[in-house]
């Protein structure tokens, strides 16, 4: 199955992309998405456990992902 991974700010700079499409086995979790992402060049500049969101809601590593989901990797937020 395919999921869209969104990257922002310093994380987009590190990976050289603001959006990626990843292929994962059925039953994959947010943690699996992150593990796949961490194999990409530049991912060594990300922390080991960044904040993650699925379909615009914060999600934990064991949350399931489904085909077509939008998974976001959220750098430290700095609003205000």
């Amino acid at each position, binding site marked *: 199955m395919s999921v869209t991974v*969104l990257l*922002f*700010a*310093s994380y987009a*700079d590190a990976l050289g992309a603001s959006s990626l499409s990843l292929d994962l086995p059925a039953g994959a979790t947010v943690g699996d998405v992150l593990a796949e992402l961490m194999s990409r060049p530049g991912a060594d500049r990300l922390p080991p456990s960044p904040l993650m*969101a699925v379909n*615009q*809601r*914060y999600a934990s590593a064991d949350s399931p992902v489904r085909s077509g989901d939008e998974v*976001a990797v*959220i*750098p*430290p*937020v*700095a*609003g*205000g």
Partner: protein
Amino acid sequence: MSQFVSPIGELVDRTIDPGALLSRVSSPSNGALIVFVGVVREVNEGRDVTGIEYSAYEPMAARELQAIADEAGARFATPHVAIEHRLGELALEDASVGIAVGHAHRGAAYEASRWIIEELKRRVPIWKREHYTDGTREWVDPASRSAQPASP
């Protein structure tokens, strides 16, 4: 005309007008109106700042801003909450965030205003890149900085 009032939290790409925000929370039931404005400051962590570029995961940031407005309304028992966060390139003294609260009493209005800015800084997916006088730019990570509380 409906008189229904509900909390508002939104992203904007224009100047934040504190007077307009206050007018959105004005009501004969309120004895106190509070407006908080966060602005771009010229020095941060000892570096000379010339401006800040704000970006966001826009649909999620808009959702979180609205959720914070709704939660503040429920927590402090007032529908008169208006939050605006600006995105894009801001110059020194430009307002990046405006928070207006109207309440029957000042204590709850102050508390709600403070609660909202702290929640916003904790959970809304917005990022800022500071521009410095030497021409460099850096993403700001509030958690990596000194023990001083980060100011908006």
